[in-house]
Each structure stands twice: as C-alpha cells, then as structure tokens.
C-alpha cells in the first residue's frame, strides 16, 4: 500500500490524483475552520459559500468587466515594457558605448519598487487605466531589458563571426542572428514579467482605485461583502495561474531547441 | 576479508524487470587488489554499490570480515568517478578531507591524518584551495586523499580515472599503487579499461554482459612494483590482456544456469 502511494508521483495521472487530493484537503480545511468556529465565519467564510459566490459572480458582466480591465492594463503595460526592454536590451547588448553610458542609470532604476510610483501615477492620470499601464510598464521593463541583454550577449561567437564573414550588416546581424538566439531569454523574461504585470496591475487598482479586480476587491471589503471579496481573490489567483501557464508554455516552446541555454530556471 | 555471495540485483518488477547482476560469487583477500572489468552496461557500478551497502541487493549478500553489509560500513571508503559531484564545492580541500573524520573516534589527530593523506597524493600546499580551483586530476587526488584519511580497510573505486586525460590517468594509477603499499589497504577497482585492470590488479574478475555473471577470475602474475612502460611490455601482460578481452567478447550463455 505504502509502496503503491510512493509510486504515484512518478506518473502524470498519479501526480494529478495526489494533487486533487491536496486540493480537496485544503478546501475541507477551509470549510471546517469557520464551521467548527476556529475562525469567525463573518471574517473568513468557508469554501462552499465563497466558491458559490464565485459561481454567481461569473454570471455577472461587472465581474468580467473587472477582469477585462485588469488584463487590459497589465497587457498594454507589458507590451510597452517588452518593446522598450527588448530595444534597449539589444542596444546595450550589442554596443559597448551604449552599455557603459546607460549601465549606472539602469542599475539604479532596476531595483526601484514600481509601486513607489503609485502616488505619481495618481497625480498624473488619476484613477484611470493609464495609471495601470505606467506602473506595469515600469515594473516589467527591467526584467525584459536584462533578459534581452543576456540573450544578445550569449550569442554564439561562431555564428556571429560567420554572419560577419558573409558581410551581413549590423542591422541584419541583429535581426537574423542576435535576436533569434536571444529569443529563449526573452521568453523567460516574458514569463517573469507577466507575473509582475498582473501583481502590479492589481496593486495599482487596489491603491489608486482604477477599474479592475483590485478595485472590486477593495470595494467589496469596504462595504462588508466578505464572501464576494474572497471570491474575487480566488478569481485573481486563478487568473494568475492561467497567465503563468500561458507564458510558461510559451517559454517551453522556445526553450526546447535551446535547452542548454536555460537561465532563470528559478521560480 | 570481503566475500560476495550469490549477489543478485534487479530493477523494476513484473514484465519490466531488468536484471543487472546475477548470482555473483567471489572473494577478496586482505591487502589484495582486485579489478572488476566487464563490457559497458554490465552491472559494474551496481555491484560496487551493493558491496558498499549503498544499494540493497535483491538476493545474496556481501560479507565484510564475516559480517553482512546492510549499510555503508565504517571501515570502507569509496572513490567515485565523478569527483566534481563527490567533492563538496563549498568546502576547502582540507575541510573536504577532514569532514568524514569528525565522528571517527579511531582517528585521534584529524588534522594530521588529513595532512598526511594530502601529502601522500602530492597535494601538500593546496589545503586552502577550493575544489573548483584545481584541475580534474587534482580534484580526483583530493577524493583519494579523503578516502585514505578515513583509514578504511577496504577501498572501493568506481571508474576513478574515467574522467581525466590519459596522461593524468597513468599518474593516478601509479599513485594509487603507491599509496596502497603505504596505507596497507585492500582495493576493489571497477573499470571498463582492460589495460588498467590488468596493470593494477592482483586478480581480475571478468563480468559478462547483463544479466552479469562472473565469467572468469584471472590471477595477474606480474612483478611488483609495476611500471607503465616495462610492465605493459611484458609478454604476460599482453597475453593476459588478450585473454580478458576474449572472455569479455564471448557470449554469456556458457556460464548461465
């Protein structure tokens, strides 16, 4: 019996079975805590009412509007970050002058917490999607820049010399040699940045009050709709998983032909 | 000293069972040097792990001075092929050698034991280096020094020179033969290199293709101390080498059953 259980994680279906068991345990625990009075049911309702609330929320357009707003803010901000990050990454990766000129500025700005700019965003744009976009773009651009930079730097010298010996121009070398080989790195950057984008977007909505899941959560809290608040949080977690799977899958597609060049395998 | 009795090991169960080694029998005398060779894929490493007590055999057992081995015995040390994964990269050379001695009561002066072993392998002066600062051959010397400092009665070596270049390999072979005299240790060496097995051993155990059985046990009667050039030029060496080669190449059917 024990040996049987120990063999389970080795197969995909076995892992799924164990995972399902884990989810079931967590949900039971969550339901039992308020039912048995371990926590105040008004402050932390059980799994059943919260998931029920989530089901009924999923039938309202207000919920989907909030999801769409969050995704739009995160998406546009991420897109801007990708364009800027890749552009500057290629520039700094292929030109020594640009690298040295911009390095100190980038090194200083990179660890600056994006949420520090929330008051600035509010002041500039008020509670609007523009705030989301600004904060997400700032939060994500550095990961994209650094990953692209590593990717361009890690280009195979032989490939580059081959390109040079065939007389490819600098622009062509970037386009046909350096960018393609940097793609796995950019894909990894995209996976990390997508998670940051969602976090920053929800945070901005929560604090600045622009439309989206974050605002809905804080609204539900302020009017005492505890079940709705938890349902929205569960929804945001599911959204996080979907985004992670999406960009994780994208990264895998790029990595499979470049397995040797895995950086950022950490999670 | 060391007896391998009816030792078998198979992986998996039912239809997917893979039999790596099957009913191996041989004995190693005190102070003897036994080489184990076999075609690639023969369960050489499996056998060594079973002897070391790192792997539980499916059937049969290993006796170390009459006592069955169920876990790595304290009077036994192992030198692995992959020194980069067997040495601890976060410890200096000295600390790598000293770490196994921490709980070893028999070794009174641990610092001295380590220094002696490092001296014996020619690494005096490198005590404070980290493994990654040394060449592959030097790293394997550290692993050998660690084994020697542990003062084992039996030293098991699993393809210890397979990851170093040919020149270093010859140097390390002679080094092991030298320290064997100096420390009076019994050695079991697993290798796929027939020359190496014949050159270094007192006896050579030849394994068949899997499921591996003992094909033949040959006594090597070459004069000691051995020499890379002279010993290998002796007609006895040449004929022994040919004999081992032929034995490995012949089908296993003869011995099975």
């Amino acid at each position, binding site marked *: 019996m024990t040996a049987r259980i120990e063999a389970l994680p080795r197969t995909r279906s076995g892992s799924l079975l*164990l995972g399902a068991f*884990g989810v079931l345990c967590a949900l039971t625990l969550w339901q039992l805590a308020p039912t048995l009075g371990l926590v105040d049911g008004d402050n*932390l309702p059980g799994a059943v009412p919260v998931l029920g609330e989530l089901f009924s929320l999923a039938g309202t357009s207000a919920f989907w509007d909030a999801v769409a707003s969050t995704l739009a803010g995160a998406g546009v901000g991420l897109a801007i970050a990708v364009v800027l990050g890749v552009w500057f990454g290629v520039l700094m990766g292929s030109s020594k002058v640009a690298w040295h000129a911009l390095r100190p500025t980038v090194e*200083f700005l990179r660890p*600056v917490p994006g949420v520090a700019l929330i008051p600035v965003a509010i002041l500039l744009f008020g509670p609007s999607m523009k705030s989301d976009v600004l904060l997400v773009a700032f939060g994500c651009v550095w990961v994209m820049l650094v990953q692209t930079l590593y990717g361009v730097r890690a280009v195979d010298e032989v490939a580059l010399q081959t390109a040079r010996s065939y007389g490819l121009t600098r622009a062509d070398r970037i386009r046909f040699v350096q960018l393609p080989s940097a793609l796995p790195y950019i894909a990894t950057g995209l996976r990390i940045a997508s998670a940051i984008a969602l976090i920053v977007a929800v945070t901005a909505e929560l604090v600045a009050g622009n439309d989206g899941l974050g605002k809905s959560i804080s609204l539900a809290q302020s009017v005492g709709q505890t079940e709705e*608040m938890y349902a929205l949080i569960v929804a945001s977690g599911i959204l*996080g998983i979907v985004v992670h799977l999406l960009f994780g899958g994208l990264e895998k597609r790029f990595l499979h032909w470049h397995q040797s060049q895995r950086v950022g395998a*950490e999670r | 000293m060391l007896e391998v009795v009816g030792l078998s090991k198979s992986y998996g169960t039912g239809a997917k069972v893979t039999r790596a080694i099957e009913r191996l029998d041989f004995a190693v005398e005190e102070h003897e040097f036994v080489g184990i060779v076999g075609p690639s894929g023969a369960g050489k490493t499996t056998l060594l*792990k079973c002897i070391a007590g790192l792997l539980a055999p499916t059937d049969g057992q290993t006796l170390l001075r009459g006592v069955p081995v169920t876990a790595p015995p304290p009077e036994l040390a192992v030198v692995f092929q992959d020194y980069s994964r067997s040495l601890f990269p976060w410890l200096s050379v000295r600390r790598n050698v000293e770490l196994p001695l921490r709980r070893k009561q028999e070794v009174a002066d641990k610092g001295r034991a380590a220094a002696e072993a490092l001296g014996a392998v020619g690494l005096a002066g490198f005590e404070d280096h980290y493994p*990654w600062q040394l060449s592959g051959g030097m790293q394997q010397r550290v692993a050998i020094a660690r084994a020697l400092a542990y003062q084992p009665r039996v030293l098991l070596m699993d393809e210890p020179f397979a990851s170093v270049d040919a020149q270093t390999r010859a140097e390390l072979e002679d080094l092991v033969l030298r320290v064997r005299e100096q420390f009076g240790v019994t050695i079991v060496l697993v290798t796929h290199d027939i020359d190496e097995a014949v050159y270094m051993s007192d006896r050579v155990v030849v394994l068949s293709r899997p499921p591996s059985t003992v094909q033949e046990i040959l006594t090597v009667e070459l004069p000691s101390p051995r020499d890379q050039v002279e010993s290998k030029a002796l007609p006895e060496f040449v004929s022994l080498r040919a004999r081992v080669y032929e034995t490995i190449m012949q089908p296993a059917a003869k011995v099975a059953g």
Partner: protein
Amino acid sequence: MSRMHLSRGRLGWLTLEVGATALIVALLWLYTDTNESYAVAPLGDVLDAFRATWLFEHVGSDVVPSLVRMTLGYGAAIVIGVVVGFGLGSSPVLAAIAAPVVSFLRSIPAAALLPPAIVLFGIGGGTKVAVIAFVCCWPIMLNTSDGVRELDSTMLATARVYGIRGIDRLRMVVLPAVAPRIFAGMRTSLSIAILLLVTSEMIASTNGIGYFVFQAQQQFAVDDMWAGVLLLGLLGFGLNLLFGVIERRVLRWNVRGDGSN
C-alpha cells in the same frame, strides 16, 4: 569622442559611465525645472525636501517602522519557506499533494491579500508582517523544495559512505547544496516584500514611508512626494545591494574561477 579613442582602456569607459550618467541627471534637472506640470517638481526642490524630511527627522518615525515590519515578515517567510520546502522536497508524495494548492496560493497577486488581512487582523503592524510572511514564503518554499529534490545522488552517496549523518549532513552537505536555490527564491521574495510593505502602508497605516508618500500626494505636496519616491528608490537599491553582498559572501564557493557567476 570617437569609439576608437574610448576603447583604449577602462578609464575611458569609466569616464563614459560617469559622464553619461551626469548628463542624464542634468537633463532630468533641466526638464523638471522648466516643466509646468503640477505633477513634476524641480529636482533641486525634491532634493531639498529629501534633506529636510529624511535626514534624519522622519527616520525614526517612518523609516524604522517600515524596516522592522519588512525584516520580521521577510525573516518569517525565510524560516517557513525553507522548513516546509525541505519537507516537500524530501517527499515526492507530499510535494505532489501540495503542488496545486501551493501554485494557486502563490499565483494570487500579493496585494489582493491585504483587504482580507485587514478584515481578519485589523490594521496593526502585525497584519503587515503576517501578509509579507504569507506571500513571500512561496517562492522560497518552491525553490527550496526543487533544490532538495535535485540534490545530487553522488554527493548524497558520498555522505553516506563516509558516515556523515544527522546534523553534520544537514549543515555541511545538504544546506550548502540547496543554498543557491534558497537564495534565488529569497531574491524573488525580496522584491515582493518591498512591494507589499509600500502598498500596505499606503492603504492601511498611520506611519511608514509608504504612508508618508501617499499622504504627500493626497495633500499635493509634490516635493515631499517625490522625495519619498526617491527614498523608496534608494531603499530598494540599498536592500538589493545588501542582498547581493550577503549572497556573494554565503555562496562564495559558487563563484566559479571562470568569472561567470
């Protein structure tokens, strides 16, 4: 300045680094000085405000509480993450059971947990500590568990052969081997911790740097707001720097001789 000239040596590159950065700051100064927007404050005024506020009047009242909260929450996250990560890493069955739940919990955008935390625990300092600990422990836990699962079999066999067990095995073999992964998780968690700290102080606090910046914005004290943003920037920069120093010290052996880290 031609490229040929600069490529002569490190000094040239250093000059370029300093010069270009000075130019960027100067341009920023000029821009903020001439810009009429109410959201932009002249850099000189911001620096004055910074000196007046943060050197060192509000350090005790706002910076210290912020740092204490972060240290406690982050420290708790490290302990929980490493301990539970070790448990999950050493049991494939436990890891498979926990996997979906853990990946769900870590996928919740961190700040979304602040409202329920306030409902549950109120707006005291303990709430922020608890939320930081809760959110920051997942990346550390996942990385630790991966690290333990991927422990090298030859390394473990070596430890067994040489009778290295118990506390020695943990301290001298397992922990150092997993340390690079633990640090990778800690690095991810550090930025989350800073994010949460600032956010929590903005929405539910009576002191702290985040609170100060948010208040300044609400009162349109633009100089003060930018000064606070600058401080948060410096804080993020400083904490990352400190983290890098500690990481390099602890993982000194992990820096290979070939110059790649």
